[in-house]
């Protein structure tokens, strides 16, 4: 079958999709968007978390056909998504340059220089916070956690620790022990709060 959907704001079309394929498989193997991760493909780990019409879902549990005509946001589109949300103009700020009116939180490490050649768009606050807080080790859980954390901060810009734990309880991480992940979400919330 053929599946049409919008992913990260752009239209995509996938042909010859077998009806048993998941949204995760189509994103990763047919659309060339491997950012969403395949850690369990059983709906247990959250590594494949994407937003389907705004709602966080495990892409491995969504049949590809269910995404027909719908809007998907993956980790690859997170920076754009965050920028649209905050109404900024796209493509003007380089990562590593603290944005105006966006002071660095005291005690956090300096932001890194741009690390992708040719990269011009800034990261979403939650992405930068994960790097700065040391919340990324192997990073396999990171895309799913970022999508979930970004959605939490969209709903609740000032979450308590219990809120963060609840929102991220469907995302397994085997490396970090979650302390730094909590730090990162708190940091993103603090920075976003200071920016407005």
């Amino acid at each position, binding site marked *: 079958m053929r599946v049409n959907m919008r992913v990260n704001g752009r239209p995509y079309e996938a042909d010859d999709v077998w009806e048993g394929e998941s949204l995760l498989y189509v994103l990763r193997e047919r659309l060339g968007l491997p950012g969403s991760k395949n850690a369990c493909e059983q709906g247990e780990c959250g590594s494949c978390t994407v937003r389907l019409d705004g709602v966080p879902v495990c892409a491995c549990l969504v049949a590809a056909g269910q995404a027909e005509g719908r809007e998907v946001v993956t980790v690859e589109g997170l920076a754009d998504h965050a920028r649209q949300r905050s109404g900024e103009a796209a493509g003007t700020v380089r990562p590593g340059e603290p944005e105006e009116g966006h002071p660095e939180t005291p005690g956090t490490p300096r932001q890194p220089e741009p690390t992708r050649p040719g990269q011009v768009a800034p990261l979403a606050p939650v992405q930068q916070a994960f790097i700065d807080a040391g919340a990324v*080790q192997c*990073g*396999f859980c990171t895309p799913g956690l970022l999508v979930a954390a970004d959605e939490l901060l969209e709903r609740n810009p000032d979450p308590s620790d219990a809120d963060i734990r609840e929102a991220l309880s469907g995302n397994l991480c085997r490396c970090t022990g979650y302390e730094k992940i909590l730090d990162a979400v708190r940091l993103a919330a603090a920075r976003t709060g200071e920016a407005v």
Partner: protein
Amino acid sequence: MAADRAPATLTQATGATRGTVGESTLRPDGTLKVTGEFAYSSDLWHEDMLWGFTLRSPCAHAAIRSIDTAGALALPGVCAVMTHDDLPAGTHYGLEIHDQPVLAKDRVRFHGEPVAIVAADHPETARRAAARIKVEYEELPLVVDEATATAPDAPLLHPGRRDHHASHVPHPNIVHRQPVRRGDVAAARARADVVVRRDYEVGMQDQAFLGPESGLAVPAEDGGVDLYIATQWLHVDRDQLAPVLGLPADKVRLTLSGVGGAFGAREDLSMQAHACLLALRTGRPVKIVYNRYESFFGHVHRHPAKLTYEHGATRDGMLLYVQCRIVLDGGAYASSSPAVVGNAASLSIGPYVVENVDVEAIALYSNNPPCGAMRGFGAVQACFAYEAQMDAVAAELGLDPVEFRQRNAMSQGATMPTGQLVDSPAPVAELLRRVKALPMPPGRAWEAAGGPVDVRALPGGLSNTTHGEAVVRGVGYAVGIKNVGFSEGFDDYSTARIRLEVIGGEPVALVHTAMAEVGQGGVTVHAQIARTELGVDRVTLHPADTRVGSAGSTSASRQTYMTGGAVKHACEAVRAEVLRRGRERFGASRPAWAEPDRLRLEDGKVVTDGGEVIGDLAGILGEEAIDLEREFRHRPTEPFDLRTGQGFGHVQYSFCAHRAVVEVDTELGLVKVVELAAAQDVGKAINPLSVVGQIHGGSTQGLGLAVMEEIVVSRDGARVRNPSFTDYLIPTILDTPAMPVEVLELADDNAPYGLRGVGEAPTLSSTPAVVAAIRAATGLPLRRVPVRPEHLTGG
């Protein structure tokens, strides 16, 4: 169609983060990882690529009577089906003992053993084809524990084995045996005022890394193969692969692909040989990605263990002797069981001074899943038992458990039960003091003053089955000792190649090693070391591959020490060459050049110890790069004596202590770890942020072993019952508490920068600390981990 994801370039850390040794430099691969662009091994893609799939045995022990692949081959889209009969060359592999078949021939020895492999144009086609392969099995009697392994009529797992342990083990179903004897236990027992003897058991833990086993094999024009792979040790993979593929080593080229965690599970081959075989057979690139179910069969696990410990002490709280026996179940194949036995034996009494010891550790061959490396490597099982014993003896003596440990704690200058002198700091008592001195978390935090009960913070969390009526709190302590690096005379080395050149008018260092970055942050510290040693700002990391010498394994907490040491070593050679060239060119005009020991490289300049700038790197290098490769070795160790266990077996020790605070719902049998505090000596924190991250991660895996993680193998059929994340539980963010960390930096003079390996020690003591806290809360003996609800409710 998917874009071509060129495997070699996308995991490259292109980051231009700054920072030298001792700073919390950020990961150079961080941006790629948060944007989803980092190419993990399961993300690889190649034009014309096929998908591989493995058919696995449903039986734990069976004779294979026949295999019929016709049905699979007939399925449209299937390009190759291979069984044992199709192997072109070697048929077995293994880390130490080559006892593991690439594909089973006439016998399977564990549930999930690979029997056939398929390559097809869609992963589902490959799966369906595999399901159409007909295999006739005839079940054989099982070996599942020590009794069935060593019974007079026990079936031999590896009849006619000829490995180097075969001659000294008491039974051919025992992989390896290591005693450790020192002093006179019988005499000490006669003098003991208190004797505590107990049995303990540790369940089979899984590494449960998140990135599944996966890789892409691409056949090359020269008849060789390029494998892009998530592994812990590229060279040892290659050395096992080449004979199986029938190729010379230089035609088997491995490049590290993005690794989603490892924790020991990627030390053994999983799909490497299968992907290469299918690629060479079909002439097309083949990708294999295990799903989570298959991953549980595709790698070795932590050895489950049965342990018997007897401790004797005087009335005033001094340990007189320890006698113990540790039986590790190694499963069907040897993997790294011999080294795990050596570790369990030599570290079996913990970080304590005991004059009289009588220890025996063995690993069995059985029909259970193969076990091998996992973070903590044999020291974890022992630590659970000896720390439980320390609490039990302290209780018998009426002593505070921390005080009792401190009285017997080893320190620098102590002698290990192996006779080895502990010749660098061993701040065991101090680490305990530090965790004990941390402020306690507030009690019954879920019972906010006057407000409603926050059920999220209760044992059981949102399932909301309690409002705290039967919740009791307990506090527990533990400390452990772990060796760093490879032991027992292993020629442990790492290699680094450093290229220093001028690019765009600026000196740039390129660091090339074969170190597997598995998430631990090696790439960060190597760049820090190069920056520190060469005084340059820009450091680029070459992808890890087999085009440079071996870096050894990313395990045994050794990479910062070993490959970090190699990078340092190679940088020193480059620096010497810089100074030689500078002296040659400018020495005549500046006498300072004659004294290289008083010169250093800083900010791209050559500076005297008086701070005078006498040259700059860009000028000295000009067009001519410096490119040097060096190996680094730690000081030699020696094998343990096979009868007495005596010997200088370990290069370095690391120590970590934990305090756990738990709340237990005694009616429901549910545990909530409220806080897990750690104190660890790291010698020198090369990257403090990463050090704390490692301690958090290790502590959490230990917490998992304490209360939830276990691969359940059925008693009757030796079949794995819970190969999924639904049934094999790893801690979530709700299960994981706040983890304050105290880091000590007492330099080890033998190590680069004085550092001490960090990654493993925290997995040792976290488990016994959590269980000690549960015992303190409930008064139950709890001699087995993981602790399950039924152990707490008596059901």
